[in-house]
């Protein structure tokens, strides 16, 4: 049965045949000649889209949990939100989490997701003990840093192109409470926030919201947020390990896009001009609000309207960051096409095959799709590439292949590994086609 599917940003929308499975043996005979795994569709683009997709959401069993050492083994379709319900009450937390808990473990591996703690804990791949992958050759192979390492490194951040990740065993982080000791610091401009990032490298979690539309001496004014897991003393004992999951409201239909900008402006201003004029605010908040502020508005993506939006996330190497960010922010500022707010984060070192992070600053911002946008983003791509940076594939729906090949220096090596584990292109996606990853 063909149906229309799309990912979180509602662009592109494609017609696809979808199959699902809850038992590995049932899957193999059902596989189309060529298809792509599809998790919870939280990527922003065409990475999990193709004419045939394999939905993994029913493959969601948690197989083992070693509460003593904090190691969990699960099937790839389980959502991080489900895992939190299991691990938090027993004193454990995800080693790395993106800004939404509604993604699958398979998606976390395939995008090699990063969190606010990248500079101390690295990306998701850093915490994998072992995993199994159903490759294009029809074999189910175990891999990790020692066993089939080429498959392991090509699967982490490999956007589903090596095959279907089936089971993942990974290690968790010990916590004393479900709360985060949070510090918010106002920064008047870009230089100031970058200096603050540098000074707070030993904070476990750090991220900044940056106002993209200010110019002059407030160019890049931001709010930096730092966080540490709180210990028991700071929280009410009886609620100390309660996972919280309640949706505030659902956005029922596609909003016109001007609504969102108005919305985020209000939130930012409320924070920035908070009643206390203090530069620094300390508080203790539940992890759910700290990590997943947008999850409480289910389907907020519809706010952007029917045409959808793109999220533009790039990273610039550390040494070129200041100049690069200034250059790009100035362009966005001039075009006035971007969202008012963007998320800025300093990554630590990472040297993987095809994963996105590298030491430097990453900026992510939303652009509602309208005429002229893609031309503008092509220009930005060029600037990012000139500074030695790159674009996050999990957030990409439109990059040109030349930019990709220029900015992912190990792409050729990745492609060779794909040829080994998937010689007949049993796994393929619109993203892979667009970037000429599968030939």
């Amino acid at each position, binding site marked *: *049965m063909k149906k229309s599917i799309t990912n979180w940003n509602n662009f592109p929308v494609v017609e696809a045949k979808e199959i699902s499975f809850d*038992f590995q043996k049932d899957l193999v005979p059902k596989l189309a000649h060529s298809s792509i795994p599809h998790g919870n569709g939280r990527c922003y683009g065409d990475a999990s889209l193709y004419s045939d997709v394999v939905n993994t959401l029913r493959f*969601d*069993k948690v*197989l*083992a949990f070693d509460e003593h050492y904090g190691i969990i083994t699960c099937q790839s379709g389980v959502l991080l939100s489900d895992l939190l*319900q*299991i691990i938090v009450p027993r004193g454990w937390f995800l080693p790395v989490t993106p800004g939404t808990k509604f993604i699958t473990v398979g998606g976390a591996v395939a995008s090699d997701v990063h969190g606010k703690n990248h500079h101390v804990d690295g990306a998701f791949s850093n915490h994998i003990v072992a995993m199994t992958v159903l490759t294009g050759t029809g074999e189910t192979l175990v891999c990790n840093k020692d066993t089939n390492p080429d498959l392991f490194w090509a699967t982490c951040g490999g956007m589903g192109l090596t095959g279907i990740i089936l089971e993942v065993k990974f290690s968790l982080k010990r916590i004393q409470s479900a709360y985060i000791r949070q510090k918010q610091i106002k920064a008047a401009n870009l230089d100031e926030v970058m200096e603050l990032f540098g000074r707070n490298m030993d904070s476990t979690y750090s991220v900044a919201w940056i106002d993209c539309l200010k110019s002059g001496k407030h160019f890049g004014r931001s709010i930096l947020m730092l966080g540490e897991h709180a210990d028991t003393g700071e929280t009410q004992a009886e609620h100390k390990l309660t996972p919280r999951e309640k949706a505030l409201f659902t956005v029922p239909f596609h909003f016109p896009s001007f609504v969102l900008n108005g919305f985020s402006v209000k939130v930012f201003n409320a924070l920035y001009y908070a009643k206390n004029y203090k530069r620094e605010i300390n508080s203790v908040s539940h992890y759910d609000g700290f990590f997943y502020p947008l999850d409480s508005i289910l389907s907020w993506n519809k706010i952007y309207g029917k045409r959808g939006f793109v999220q533009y996330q790039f990273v610039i190497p550390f040494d070129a960051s200041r100049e690069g960010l200034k250059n790009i922010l100035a362009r966005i500022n001039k075009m006035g096409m971007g969202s008012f707010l963007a998320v800025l984060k300093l990554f630590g070192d990472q040297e993987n095959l095809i994963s996105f992070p590298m030491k430097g600053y990453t900026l992510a911002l939303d652009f509602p799709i309208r005429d002229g946008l893609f031309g503008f983003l092509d220009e930005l791509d060029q600037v990012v590439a000139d500074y030695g940076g790159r674009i996050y594939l999990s957030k990409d729906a439109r990059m040109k292949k030349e930019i990709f090949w220029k900015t992912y220096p190990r792409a050729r090596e990745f492609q060779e590994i794909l040829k080994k584990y998937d010689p007949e292109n049993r796994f393929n996606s619109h993203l892979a086609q667009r970037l000429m990853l599968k030939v």
Partner: protein
Amino acid sequence: MEENVLILGAASDMAVAIARKFASAGYSLTLAARNVEKLEAIAADLKVRYNVAVASVKFDALDFASHEQFYHSLAERPDVVVCVFGLLGDQFEAQQHWKACEEILFTNYVGAVSILNVVANDFERQKRGTIIGISSVAGDRGRQSNYFYGSAKAGFTAYLSGLRNRLYHHGVHVVTVKPGFVKTRMIENIKTPGPITASVKKVADSVFTASKRKRDSIYVLSVWALIMLVIRFIPEAVFKRLKL
């Protein structure tokens, strides 16, 4: 001691959702399926998520002769039995080949009756227990697209109401569940309208509530009560002309 639920046909999505719901309320579980291998991951998952005891046993609805023995050798006597297994089958093929037709009738009706008779006798003796049967709206009126399945479910619905009538006098409760469309493997290749299609989680929540509140017969989504009311009231002279 906590109560135990026996789930018959425990490897399906709907069964997993029902098992999770009962486990989250602290019930221990006995999972029964024809393919025990499939239960491994499901049982592990329930244990990790809810810290409850889970046993897995082989059960084939079509192996009628084994049912008595199956039930009496369970390690734990159930307090609640949920009969989930079912087979939609291929209506067209079943029109041509008796084997296919027989399998639909035997799975949905005869198999269910065979095992629930055993359960009913036990619960009647003990004067307690709850039996939940997953039937179908397809049993409310026969339609050309699935009347083998529909008539077997109609038989099952009638069986459950008779059983309820008998066991009521012995303190045993019987629930009939008519799910309507549910997003599962069974209807993966059928296009169904979103607003009248339930999730397995919704089914599980309704099943659990119905069992706690001792409801007799439920539709999972209330719009289905209305839809079926309309469908039942269409005069046969009109109904037979429709392509349903």
